[in-house]
C-alpha cells in the first residue's frame, strides 16, 4: 500500500496495524522525495538520522504518541541542531545550528521524524517562493507555477503527498496562502501560542509558527504538540493549552460567521466567488449563521504591514554582519567594507529591498510618519476586530484573491503587485489572531482556499469549523496529477 497522500492518522493506522514499519515508512518517504525531486521542495535532507530514529522506534515498539515515527518536514527557518539551516539564503549557506527551535524539539520529542528542511522564500520574504537562493519551488498542481510563499516548500511537499505534514511560519500569510495555492490545510495560531525560540526572526511582532497538513484534524494534533509556554521566548503566552482534538466535532448550530463588507468580494474572479458562496451554503446547512460585519480600516492593512514588517526585518537582520556566523566576503578593505560586502553578497534582492524600506521607515525624520503611524493604524485594525467579535464567532474570507500564478508573472515590474497577494491574510498577523486556510475547490484546475479567522486564542473554533467542513466535503482529498514531476 502506497504511503503517498496519506494523512498523519492514516499513517498512524498503518503503523499500528503493522502494515508498515517505521523504518519502511521513512525509507518510502525518501523514495518519494527523490522521485519528485524536480519540485525542489527540500533544501537539505536528513536521511541517515531519520532512518536511525525510525529503527529505534521499531525496536522499542513504543507508539504511544500519535506522532511516533511520523515523517515531517521543517521549514528551513527553524533551527535544527546539527542539521543545516539556511533560511534559503546564501547568507546562511553553511549554518549548522547549535540548538533546535522549541517547536521542533516539541515535535521530535513526541516521536516525529524530521526528514528534511523545506525550501522557502529567502528569510520568509515573499508570497511565491521565487526569492529562494536554492531556486523556485514548483506547485504540484502545475509545473512552472508558484506554490505560494513563504512556506512554499512545506506546502508543495505535503500537497505532493511526500510527507503528511510540515511546519511553516506565517508573518503575513506565509502558511495560509501556500496552503491555499497547493490545496492543503494550514493554520496560523494566535501570536504567542507557539514559541518563536529558535525560529530565525523576520518580523518579531508578526511571526508565528504553525502546521501545514492534509486535514484540519492533523493540524489540531500537530498544534497540540507545538504549542505551550516557553520561558525562552518572552512573548510566549502562559495559558492553558486545551486539547484541540476534543472540540473538532462540536455542533456548528448557531455559530455566527462574519463576512467582511469592505472586502468587496464582487470584485473577485467569478469562479472564486462561486466557490465562496457554495462554501457559505455548506456551512449554513451545518447550522451556521451568517451576517455582514464591518472592519472599517481593513484596507489599510497592506500598507500598515509593509511599514512594520520591513522595519522589524531591518532591525532583526542587522545581526548578519559576517563576523560570528554566516557569509563573509573575501579581502575586505576595512571593517565597514567587511560588513557591507558580506551583507550585499549574502542577501538577495527582495531581502535587500525590505531592509532598505525598513531602514528608511525607522530613520530620523521619517519614523513618526511611517513606522509610528503604521503602529497606530495597527491598533485601529485590532480595535475593528474586537468590535466585530462582539457580534460574530468567526470571520470567513477567501485566503487569496487569485489562484497560483506562473513563475515571474507577478511582482517583477512592481513589487506592490505581489504584496497585494496578502490582502486577506495580513490583518490576522497585525491583530495577532488565529486563522486557518482550507481547500474548497478548484478554479481552472488550480486549488482555492477558504480562510476562517478566529478570536484571540480560539483555535478550537476555527479547527472545529474546518474539520466539520472536511467531514462534509471532499475538497481536502483532491490530489494533483504528479506525472510532470517524475
Amino acid at each position, binding site marked *: 500500500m502506497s504511503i503517498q497522500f496519506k494523512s498523519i492518522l492514516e499513517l498512524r493506522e498503518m503503523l499500528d496495524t503493522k502494515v508498515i514499519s517505521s523504518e519502511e515508512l521513512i525509507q518510502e518517504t525518501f523514495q518519494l522525495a527523490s522521485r519528485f525531486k524536480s519540485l525542489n521542495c527540500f533544501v537539505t535532507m536528513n536521511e541517515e538520522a531519520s532512518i536511525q530514529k525510525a529503527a529505534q522506534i521499531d525496536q522499542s515498539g513504543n507508539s504511544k504518541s500519535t506522532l511516533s515515527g511520523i515523517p515531517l518536514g521543517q521549514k528551513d527557518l527553524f533551527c535544527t541542531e546539527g542539521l543545516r539551516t539556511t533560511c534559503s539564503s546564501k547568507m546562511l549557506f*553553511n549554518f549548522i545550528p*547549535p540548538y533546535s527551535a522549541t517547536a521542533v524539539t516539541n515535535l521530535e520529542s513526541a516521536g516525529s521524524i524530521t526528514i528534511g528542511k523545506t525550501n522557502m522564500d529567502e528569510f520568509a520574504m515573499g508570497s511565491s517562493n521565487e526569492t529562494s537562493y536554492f531556486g523556485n519551488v514548483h506547485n504540484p498542481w502545475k509545473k512552472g507555477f508558484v506554490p505560494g510563499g513563504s512556506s512554499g516548500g512545506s506546502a508543495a511537499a505535503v500537497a505532493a503527498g511526500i510527507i503528511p505534514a510540515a511546519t511553516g511560519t506565517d508573518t503575513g500569510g506565509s502558511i495560509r496562502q501556500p496552503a491555499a495555492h497547493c490545496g492543503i490545510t494550514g493554520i496560523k495560531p494566535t501570536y504567542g501560542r507557539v514559541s518563536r525560540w529558535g525560529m530565525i526572526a523576520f518580523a518579531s511582532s508578526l511571526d508565528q509558527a504553525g502546521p501545514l497538513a492534509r486535514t484540519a484534524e492533523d493540524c489540531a494534533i500537530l498544534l497540540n504538540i507545538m504549542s505551550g509556554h516557553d520561558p525562552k521566548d518572552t512573548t510566549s503566552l502562559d495559558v492553558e493549552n486545551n486539547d484541540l482534538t476534543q472540540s473538532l466535532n462540536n455542533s456548528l448550530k448557531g455559530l455566527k460567521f462574519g463576512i467582511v463588507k469592505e472586502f468587496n468580494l464582487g470584485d473577485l474572479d467569478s469562479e472564486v466567488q462561486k466557490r465562496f458562496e457554495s462554501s457559505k451554503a455548506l456551512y449554513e446547512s451545518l447550522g451556521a449563521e451568517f451576517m455582514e460585519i464591518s472592519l472599517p480600516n481593513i484596507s489599510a492593512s497592506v*500598507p500598515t504591514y*509593509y511599514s512594520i514588517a520591513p522595519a522589524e526585518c531591518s532591525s532583526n537582520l542587522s545581526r548578519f554582519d559576517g563576523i560570528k556566523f554566516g557569509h563573509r566576503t573575501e579581502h575586505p578593505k576595512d571593517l565597514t567594507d567587511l560588513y557591507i*560586502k558580506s551583507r550585499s553578497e549574502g542577501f538577495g534582492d527582495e531581502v*535587500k529591498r525590505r531592509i532598505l*524600506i525598513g531602514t528608511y521607515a525607522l*530613520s530620523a525624520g521619517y519614523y513618526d*510618519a511611517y513606522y509610528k503611524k503604521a503602529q497606530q493604524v495597527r491598533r485601529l485594525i485590532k480595535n475593528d476586530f474586537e468590535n466585530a467579535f462582539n457580534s460574530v464567532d468567526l470571520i470567513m474570507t477567501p485566503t487569496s484573491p487569485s489562484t497560483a500564478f506562473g513563475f515571474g508573472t507577478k511582482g517583477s515590474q512592481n*513589487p506592490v503587485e505581489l504584496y497585494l497577494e496578502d490582502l486577506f491574510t495580513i490583518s490576522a498577523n497585525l491583530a495577532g489572531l488565529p486563522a486557518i486556510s482550507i481547500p474548497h475547490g478548484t478554479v481552472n484546475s488550480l486549488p482555492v482556499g477558504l480562510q476562517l479567522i478566529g478570536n484571540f486564542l480560539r483555535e478550537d473554533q476555527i479547527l472545529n469549523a474546518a474539520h466539520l467542513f472536511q467531514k462534509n466535503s471532499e475538497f481536502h482529498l483532491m490530489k494533483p496529477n504528479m506525472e510532470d514531476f517524475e
Partner: protein
Amino acid sequence: MDQEIVRTICYLARLEIDEDKAQKIEKDLETIIELIGGLGSIDTTNIEPLYSPLEKTALKHEDILNSDNQKEKFLQNAPHSNDDYFLVPRFVE
C-alpha cells in the same frame, strides 16, 4: 526618493546596490513608500501605537546560568576562528 537618499539608506543598512540595479531599486522604494504614505490620510489622533499584539513588555527572569559552555559549537559556525575567538582581518597596524 532620489539617488542621494538611496545612497544614505544603503549606507545606514550597510548594503550596496549594483549599479545596474540602482534605478530599479529607487523606483521600487518610491512605489512602496507611496503605498505606505497612504496611511497619512487616516486620523490617528490620540491613538496609542500597538507595537505588539500582546501589549505586554518582555517578561523578566532571574539571571541564572542554565546551560553549559558551548564555545566550540558556536565557534564552529564562524567564518574564521581559532580555539578561543572569532577572528576578523587585521585593519589596524
